[in-house]
């Protein structure tokens, strides 16, 4: 038994030495803020094998006023789009440029775009891409505002903007 204990101690020592600092920061809250922390270090990695511990709770934090960061962390309907876009901007932008994709289809769902208008929505995203992404600062709010005004100009899609 002693031998096992010693080996385990040796192993822990080596892995502690070989490990970089461990990202244990909390997720923080804030509208649309998403925090993903990579994890490094062998020990957390190995022991996290079945836990998914570091990337579970701490990787995602968002709040929308009264909700989020607490027990009922479901996203309020009216901020759902904003959070979705902020969290997926890199994927969504690519699909807007391509004129199709799962994220774009999901955005259409959030915006209640009916199936018959989906094609129009996809081409508008692609055709207006240059305008929507004109500015150097492309944050989620900015992009959504530009998309909204582009949709207002479109006779099929204007009805989805209140």
């Amino acid at each position, binding site marked *: 038994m002693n*031998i*096992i204990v*010693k*080996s*385990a101690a*040796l*192993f822990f020592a*080596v*892995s502690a030495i070989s490990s970089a600092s*461990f990202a*244990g920061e909390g997720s923080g809250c804030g509208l649309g803020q998403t*925090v*993903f*922390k*990579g994890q*490094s270090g*062998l*020990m*957390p*990695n*190995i*022991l996290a094998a*079945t*836990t*998914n*511990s*570091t*990337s*579970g*709770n*701490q*990787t*995602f934090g968002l709040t929308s006023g009264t909700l989020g960061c607490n*027990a*009922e*962390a*479901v996203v309020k*309907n009216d901020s759902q789009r904003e959070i*979705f876009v902020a*969290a997926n*901007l*890199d994927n969504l*932008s*690519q699909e*807007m*440029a*391509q*004129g199709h994709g*799962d*994220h774009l*289809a*999901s955005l259409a*769902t959030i915006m209640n775009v009916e199936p018959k208008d989906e094609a129009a929505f996809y081409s508008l995203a*692609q*055709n207006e*891409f*240059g305008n929507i*992404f004109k500015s*150097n600062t*492309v944050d989620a709010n900015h992009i959504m505002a530009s998309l909204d005004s582009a949709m207002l100009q479109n006779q099929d899609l204007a009805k989805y903007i209140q």
Partner: protein
Amino acid sequence: MQLAVYLKLFIIFLHTGFIATILLASSATANENITNMANIQELIESHEFDKAVERTLNNKNHYLYELINKATALELESHPVWRTLLHYKASLIHHTISQVDGTDYFNSQNGKTNSQSELIATLASFFSTTKIKDIDMTPQCRFPARFYWLNKQLNFDPTKLAKQDCKKFKYFSQALDANAVTVVFPSAHPNSPSSMFGHTLLRFDRKGQTNKTRMLAYSANYAAEINSTNEFAYAYKGLTGGFIGKFSIIPYYMKLREYSQMESRSIWEYQLNLTPSQVDFIVMHTFELEITHFDYYFFTENCSYHLLSLIEVAIPELKLTDHFNGAVVPINTIKLLDKHNLISKKEYYPSNRQLIKNRRNDMAKEKFSLAIEISKDTNKINSKELSKYNEAEQATIFDMAYDLNRFNKIQSTGELDSKINNSQRKLLIARSSLKVKTPSVKIDEPSTYPDEGHGTTRITFGGGTIEKSQYASFGFRLAYHGILDPTEGYSPNSQIQFFSLKARYHTSTSSYQLAQLDIIDILSLEPRDSFFQDISWRINTGISSTSTKTTTNNLVYTVNGGPGLTYSANFLNNTYIYSFLESELNHSQIYDTQLQALAGLSAGFLTNLTAYWKIHAYAKLLGHINNRDANVSDVYTIALEQSFSIAKDISVHFQLSQDKLYLGKVSTSELSVNYYF
């Protein structure tokens, strides 16, 4: 104050419906009763449920009295649904104990260990209209599953026990909008060791959801809350329940980003075969659990165990969690669900890395090289080289360039920041001007799902010779997958083994010997190419025997490992050539210095000749660092290993090796049969 008391009394009279009785009784008794009733309600409102129950037992007029009697007669405290809702398990000391560790989860002071007092206190709590501090909910609204189920069993009289309007739960269940649940299994990715066992979470599938929009669903994820930055504390706490484990509700798109994009893990989705009311009940219980917490145990009460304990409330008769007494390997919970025919649909969601590889296979080499260049410097979108391609080809190159750029960004920062930078923006603007669709990529779906792979525990019987001494061997491995084990359902180029023991019985001397005990043995061979530049690595720690002698004196405990490079050979499928830098620490009584430090090199070749036949050959050469004595020479190992899969859970291994060790050369040959379960 007086007025409030009278008001409450009046309400109680209405609720209990015993006004008539009280009017008929003598005024003295009536007064006593009134005081008693008032006291009970006051105790309930101050959430002193045990005391309220005590009082009620002397007051047959309270509706609670009737409910307690009814519940006791029905023996609801030992009903499987009640026991799973409270996560009760048999316990030696307490007879029964709940695995929930948040005190907020129990209405009775003894609720953690006493099913009956918790049941009765819960019935009492339903009469309370006072909200629980911090969570701003009445007990009835805090435990929607308990209320729903007890109401079904006892048919609460709404005039005596009113159903309250629970806004928070209503909002929660409307947001989830679940009509099915899916167990999601992010599988292992070799170079992300934290993922090596996989993980499970639960997705709430919405009405009208498609494969495209499933990312909008919510998921419930159980994880440890890590509050320690010290690695020793991390290990210790993780094994001893020092961390708190909590359920959280997270949009599925966040989980997809995390597993598919950040950790390069492919995802397997197993939709469960449950009725809408079973799904509703799981939603109710998710709400209950999300507020409280468990103690987290890495190996036993882990993510997959408690996910199963959540699902279990809908199907308590299957006693799903009782199936696991030791370590819970996530994939085994899926196998269990499958065994009970609970899986109705399986889906594969490739990792981002896999998608890139698939797309690359559809692309000419020069186009891929150009995409790499553009991904590194987006000004190359104007390069002349592009002009020789048509619009569709250019679009494919831009798409790939963006994929690679994003992949590198995520990998280099280790964070899944979704912001796009200026060069990404320019690249996308160029792409948007090409009005062509990206051709859909052919996804190489693995032929075997992870739940169809070999069992995670292994026993071995075999025989062999070591330096002409014959022996019979026996082996046991707790988990999970070795490089020679059948590949189907696992990654072909990695191994993770926990607690692997090998013993020998020498026939000539009739003696037993501990040959090897590996505590952890991990090998990750991640092939490099023009884009993916991963470092392979290995680590091993354990005890091994240095000779045929059976005394314990010749045991050595070792820690070794190091980084390496792996390349995949083009001429054969699933063939890897690798080389590692090796470092090793040995401790043994047989050494003069007790502790030996060694360093060196290793190289190997691993191939899956056919789906059933693997060959692994390697050599390792190590020199002493702290002992340059002329008598102490370098050590080496050469080995040739082959394995044949006979069936899903049976394989035959044949190993030849020569070790030059501290005490001299040792040649070994062994044939063994492995059974997985």
